[in-house]
């Protein structure tokens, strides 16, 4: 029977860790002990078996995915500009893994899924407020000096934006008298929202204006996924639910928006298997996160069928996976907006909630003419002016 020291000596020999003297001792041991020879032979075969296993090349896209994820934050920039700005490839990869994750780790993933839902709620809220502001204030906002209507030189501040290559409207196509614009004036909820202090405050918010000027924001506004989500019954139902409103106005949710770990997860993508990240662990230890998970309205919202339908819809998933949407969420201005009092105030208004649920609003969003109108600074300002007069 080989003793422990001799067994170790043989193992070390296989690993090439013995000194010349120890190797000589092993040779002597093997010469006189069949059991030692058998062990050495087995370990040698085992080692050979490991050697036969091919060292695989990593997936060809791995490096690119990492570099893309690092693309936005330059290493030498100040801390405020750092962050996981665009881990798009990771999100795409994670999306493909979602079904697998849910199938195999239901219990373990409970917290991760809860977090995903939390993030979805936040994303939906932002999408809603963003679209209202886009329609009300023009696209881009006042001060940017460039719309997308026609490019008529006679219309100051409005010029062709090369970015938008869809149907290009001419100035002749759009006016305050346009029937679709008139829908706005006939909607008391919209007018009430426009006149509210919260909305005005939001429109004056410099971060919000920066957000509107960003490429990511503009791309999201033009994406089919975004439009489909906004027009869906499930989305409208969620927006109209008391539970949603309560959650969005809860202190716990607001605290989460200011939490760095939560932001990191949002930027990684709601569908990512986030529990493996440090950010996820930090978030789970966060008091605000825990409070939100225990919040009755939050749980009620998660149980809401419309909310589930919304999450399950392909359009909503597409939106979540949309690179521009992710980029927008990573935008510093976006973060500031989310944390602003003005944004929170708007979310708390009845008018906002009513608009989100209204048929008129849905129709407006799906109208191509109105979408084009909303990109015109001059027309949006005209609309705001008209809206103010209508309220007087």
């Amino acid at each position, binding site marked *: 029977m080989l003793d422990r020291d001799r*067994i*170790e000596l043989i*193992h*070390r020999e296989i*690993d*090439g*860790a013995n000194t010349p003297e120890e190797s000589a001792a092993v040779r002597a041991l093997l010469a006189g002990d069949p059991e030692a020879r058998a062990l050495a032979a*087995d*370990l040698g*075969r*085992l*080692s050979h*078996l*490991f050697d*036969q*296993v*091919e*060292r*695989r*090349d*990593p*997936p060809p896209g*791995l*490096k690119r*995915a*990492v*570099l893309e*994820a*690092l693309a936005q*934050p*330059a*290493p*030498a920039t100040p801390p405020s500009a*750092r962050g*996981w700005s665009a*881990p798009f*490839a*990771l999100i795409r*990869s*994670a999306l*493909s*893994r979602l079904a*697998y994750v849910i199938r*195999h*780790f*239901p*219990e*373990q*993933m409970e917290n991760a899924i809860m977090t995903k839902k939390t993030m979805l709620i936040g994303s939906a809220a932002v999408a809603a407020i963003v679209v209202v502001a886009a329609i009300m204030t023009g696209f881009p906002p006042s001060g940017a000096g460039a719309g997308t209507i026609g490019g008529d030189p006679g219309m100051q501040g409005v010029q062709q934006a090369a970015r938008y290559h869809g149907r290009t409207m001419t100035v002749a196509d759009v006016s305050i008298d346009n029937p679709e614009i008139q829908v706005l004036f006939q909607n008391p909820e919209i007018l009430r929202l426009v006149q509210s202090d919260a909305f005005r405050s939001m429109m004056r918010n410099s971060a919000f204006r920066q957000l509107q000027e960003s490429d990511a924001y503009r791309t999201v506004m033009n994406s089919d996924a975004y439009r489909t989500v906004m027009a869906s019954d499930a989305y409208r139902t969620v927006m109209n639910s008391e539970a949603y409103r309560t959650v969005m106005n809860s202190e716990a949710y607001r605290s989460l928006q200011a939490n760095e770990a939560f932001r990191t997860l949002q930027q990684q993508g709601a569908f990512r*298997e986030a*529990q*493996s*990240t*440090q950010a996820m662990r930090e978030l789970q230890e966060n008091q605000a996160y825990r409070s939100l998970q225990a919040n009755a309205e939050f749980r009620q919202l998660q149980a809401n069928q419309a909310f589930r339908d919304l999450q399950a819809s392909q359009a909503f998933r597409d939106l979540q996976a949309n690179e521009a949407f992710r980029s927008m969420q990573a935008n510093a201005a976006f973060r500031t907006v989310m944390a602003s009092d003005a944004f929170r105030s708007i979310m708390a208004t009845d008018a906002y909630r009513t608009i989100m649920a209204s048929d008129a609003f849905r129709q407006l969003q799906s109208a191509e003419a109105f979408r084009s109108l909303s990109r015109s600074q001059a027309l949006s300002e005209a609309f705001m002016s008209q809206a103010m007069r209508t309220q007087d």
Partner: protein
Amino acid sequence: MEQIPADIDDQDRAFVRGYLGGQRDAANGLIDRYQKPLYNVALRMLHDAQDAEDVIQTVFLNALLKLKSYDPKYRFFSWVYRMTVNESLNVLKRRKPTVALEDEAGLPAAGSTPDRAAEAEDQVGMALLDLKPDDRAVVVLRHFVSFTYQEIAEVLEISVKTVKSRLFTARERLRVALLEREG
């Protein structure tokens, strides 16, 4: 047992300094150097290519984003390998426990590919899954990236004595699982 050459450490430090100084190409250098061995470590730890890819992406991103907190008095390789092992262990912890079937743990089923490398991969992969994750990590670092006992100890932040204990115990189990069944 070959140790990681000192000039590799020097090159790593140069990449780290370069990246922190704003040279984006430095990230390329670090990824090029480590992506294959790290991927293979994760792959052998997890026995799942997609999980391994996810782990490596996470590791590189975390490493590069937290590079400022990296203490250059430690070796870069041990830092990223440690992250890889830890991330893999996290994935394993979340997996639903499964009961290994007899055939899965040992020899490949009849009719499987005759290719020897594929056969070896299948055999070794399934047998590794039968090991405790901590023991598996030691085996993987020893046999797939050829680390010395000292380097394994450094990566896993355990003593050399513990490394040897885990390695020898694990190999004994593998010997039974892989060789004695062959007859």
